[in-house]
């Protein structure tokens, strides 16, 4: 029996399982889109954005395999969901001085988030959970088993309160530093960030900087913070 045409064999054996490709509405896709379209602007707005996770974007760009968050470690944003469903509409807000589910009050008060079971402008009870990326995700629910039903870890109110303010302030500085529209040299960025860390006070005592060498295709510095290992990574990215 003659063998099949290898081209036809290849056609029947796509090496990518398309069912495993993240949807264009996934968190990953949203984060990358936001990172791209907010270049040169502050990625955080006081007004809740549909999705605005600068850290997640940097994470996606270059550091996905380097950082493992196991608890609420990413204090740059809080994800507020409109229903108890990870695919539901959501708003990302920046926490104020403390990390709390109450950060999601304003999207509900302002009508940014709506839900047929909640009166327009009213604030529902919240349940806070922790995503795999260490982000606080807040759902409109009074059910204590909400997190478990979504496969997420529960969030304990007050976690990181003492340090979150300093962390937010430093992250603001870093976002501003790297969003200034210029290509930052990795070595210079490492030195500048070292100064920022030492000026940030006790909250960042013991932190170290790990800079990865730039390449010709990735000459510019970006950053990612790993709270679980007290490490700030300087990561080379392409020139934008």
């Amino acid at each position, binding site marked *: 029996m003659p063998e099949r*045409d290898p081209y036809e064999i*290849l056609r029947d054996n796509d090496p990518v399982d398309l069912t495993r490709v993240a949807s264009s509405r996934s968190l990953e896709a949203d984060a990358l889109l936001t990172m791209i379209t907010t270049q040169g602007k502050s990625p955080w707005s006081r007004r809740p954005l549909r999705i605005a996770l600068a850290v997640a974007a940097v994470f*996606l760009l*270059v550091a996905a395999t380097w950082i493992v968050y196991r608890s609420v470690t990413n204090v740059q944003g809080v994800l507020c969901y409109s229903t108890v469903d990870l695919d539901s509409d959501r708003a990302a807000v920046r926490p104020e001085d403390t990390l709390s589910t109450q950060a999601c009050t304003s999207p509900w008060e302002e009508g940014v988030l709506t839900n047929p079971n909640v009166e327009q402008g009213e604030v529902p009870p919240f349940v806070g959970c922790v995503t795999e990326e260490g982000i606080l995700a807040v759902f409109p629910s009074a059910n204590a088993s909400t997190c478990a039903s979504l496969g997420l870890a529960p969030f304990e109110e007050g976690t990181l309160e003492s340090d979150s303010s300093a962390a937010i302030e430093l992250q603001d500085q870093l976002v501003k530093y790297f969003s200034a529209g210029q290509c930052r040299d990795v070595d210079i960025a490492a030195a500048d960030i070292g100064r920022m860390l030492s000026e940030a006070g006790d909250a960042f005592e013991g932190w170290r900087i790990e800079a990865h060498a730039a390449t010709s*295709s990735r000459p510019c510095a970006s950053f990612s913070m790993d709270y679980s290992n007290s490490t700030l990574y300087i990561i080379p990215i392409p020139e934008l």
Partner: protein
Amino acid sequence: MAANLSDQKAARFEDLYRETYEPVVAYCRRRARSHHEAEEVVSTTFLVAWRRFDDFASAELPLAWLYAVAYRSLSNQRRGWGRRSALKKRLQIEGTGSVQSPDREAEARLEASRAFEALATLSNYDQEIIRLAAFEDLAYEAIGVVVGKSVDAVRSDIFRARQRLRRAFDGGGSGS
């Protein structure tokens, strides 16, 4: 007005991004050594699309335009890659998803493995045009956009590349 234009641009970009995100991710995964590397190329590709938004938005075939960007980005990284082992590994991990008897399945996997090995012996250009036709299911015109050639040239190139693939598959040696 400036803000308006900026908003319009972002909205148009988002539409195109949503339409093309999944095929671009799949394209990159088919060619990259790892998911991590594929993510980097996906990011770079859409960053370029944003920076060159006018070209992207006015492209007759936006998806092929993105593939062209990803193709160049991957080509820059491809030197020295151990393509054969990477492809074989992925094939083993992801498989075809089809349900067959154990014997037939083993045979099909062996046959697929041989086809991928034959593909890996071809030049990068031949591999690319075969993949674009076989996996991305692109027409000659779109393949031409990706690799920067005319439709006639692509038609002829694919014909020859398939012959080389056949020879490599039959002989187990280089088809180039």
